[in-house]
């Protein structure tokens, strides 16, 4: 990936992280940990890969994103806002009773949200339906879905995985955000989904392993997925929960908790410093 493009993506991802922290802080609730772990991939998809039009969010030929791990809505909202789907200031209205930014993504109220999600396991099936629709109509759009590593404990994920490969849906990419943590502990302690790579391979998917925070690896994986024909692609993205905010990193307690005022200041100052470094080319 070109250095200038990479730098721009890093800047955007940092702004997405600031949007996440702002949203969750003002809402006094939400899910910062998994939002931060998926921030780089969402940034890459919306700013470098997906064919979308913020002026026409329902454009029928657009690429689709189904946030199967719907609780990381703050990350999707921050990305969509920065991409121009709605004002960035509105991120501070997250989860408020008069806001169109629901606690989990709602396609009826939020421009750019392609599917309402939140109940784990259902999003990937909806993404399979979209990919199937693309095949039947002969449209060239691609469908992306992001799942949590805890989410794949849901049986429906494997119903969807089986069907997607049975139908050869190569216009579908499922990202597994493998941050290794879920509410009750590490995924391995709770109910190990490992080995994830072998499972998806056994279900007939093209599988690629990457670091979720390396834009070079992200770019290579999504490009390879686009080239690969005959099978859907699963990108197993090793990530750090809470990535980018030092005290949230790899801490299960930040799965679903909002920072207090002091923690908010610290998180924002870390991200501002990171942004300044990126902009100054350090």
């Amino acid at each position: 990936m070109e250095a200038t493009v990479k730098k721009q993506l890093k800047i955007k991802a940092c702004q997405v992280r600031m949007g996440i922290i702002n949203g969750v802080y003002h809402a006094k609730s939400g899910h910062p940990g998994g939002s931060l772990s998926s921030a780089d991939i969402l940034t890459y998809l919306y700013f470098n890969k997906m064919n979308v039009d913020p002026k026409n969010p329902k454009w029928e030929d657009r690429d689709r994103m189904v946030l199967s791990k719907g609780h990381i809505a703050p990350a999707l909202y921050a990305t969509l806002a920065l991409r121009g789907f709605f004002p960035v200031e509105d991120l501070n209205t997250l989860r408020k009773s008069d806001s169109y930014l629901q606690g989990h993504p709602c396609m009826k109220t939020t421009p750019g949200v392609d599917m309402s999600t939140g109940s784990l396991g259902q999003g990937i099936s909806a993404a399979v339906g979209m990919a199937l629709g693309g095949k039947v109509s002969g449209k060239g759009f691609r469908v992306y879905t992001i799942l949590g590593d805890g989410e794949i404990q849901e049986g429906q994920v494997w119903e969807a995985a089986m069907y997607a490969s049975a139908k050869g849906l190569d216009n579908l990419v499922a990202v597994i955000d493998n941050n290794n943590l879920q509410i009750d502990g590490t995924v391995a302690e709770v109910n190990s989904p490992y080995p994830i790579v072998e499972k998806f391979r056994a279900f007939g998917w093209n599988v690629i392993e990457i670091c979720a925070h390396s834009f070079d690896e992200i770019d290579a994986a999504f490009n390879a997925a686009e080239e690969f024909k005959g099978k859907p692609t699963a990108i197993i993205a090793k990530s750090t929960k809470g990535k980018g905010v030092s005290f949230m990193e790899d801490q299960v307690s930040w799965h679903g908790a909002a920072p207090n005022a002091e923690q908010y200041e610290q998180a924002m100052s870390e991200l501002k410093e990171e942004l300044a470094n990126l902009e100054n080319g350090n």
Partner: protein
Amino acid sequence: MADIIKTATREAYGKALAELGAVNDKVIVLDADLAAATKTGVFKKAFPERFFDTGIAECNMISIAGGLSTTGFTVFASSFAMFAAGRAFEQVRNTLGYSHLNVKIGATHAGISVGEDGATHQCCEDIALMRTIPGMVIINPADDVEARAAVFAAAEYEGPVYLRFGRLAVPRINGEDYKFEMGKGITLREGTDVTIVATGLMVNEALIAYDILAAEGISAKVINIHTIKPLDKELIIKAAEQTGAVVTAEEHNIIGGLGGAVAETLSENLPVPVVRVGVEDTFGRSGPAAELLKIFGLDAANIVEKAKRAIAMKKN
């Protein structure tokens, strides 16, 4: 007397889908390995490129249907009522209902008349479950004529619709001049002493009950409610006002179905005695459908008995 035509509403469903597919190329049909039983196989034969079998995975099928519908298709997703409304309830609620997606659930083998397969397959809870989902339309046709009309009306409507069909062949009660209007009940007989509000295969039983009551000098009004949600409240309130007593009849648990809907409506608008005929909060069992319907009181004799009870409860 002319021969009575008997057809299962699921048969009419399959035929109507194929008919619809011929005039609407945006119709896609999904099934979960029951195409031969739900009769979506008729559509599959006619339009194999627009038919998808998801295998035995109803939850996945419902969410796939939701995703598909957002790409410009009118999707019919079929399974037995037990699995479409029961097993996949949360997918119907969260993937379809919450976003008001354009998916029609073709749920066959509803109720006790499934027969020999027994309790695990006799869904008497589906109307109650579907009624609690905001914006869900519920249609329970009484015969093949109504079933066909319901399929076309559902395709015209933008949003989720639950279509309830039966396995058992039932008598045709509607003529060639039949007109279906979603959300509008149909008054089949006029009467002054009691109103029988029936749905599905119980509509025919209500008509038989009308004759029995008439022979005993009791004048019953008979209303066919094919659309349970949205309910034709105006028609029901007016009938309650005219007759002062109501009996409901459905092949469903007396909790949460048509009886529940009618009782809720009348108690808030025009309280009159309401007596419910239905499966009395119990599980089904194996047996020939016709026998089971009698065993569970889903027949004209029970409607007659309940009609008399409702009349006796009137405050004079």
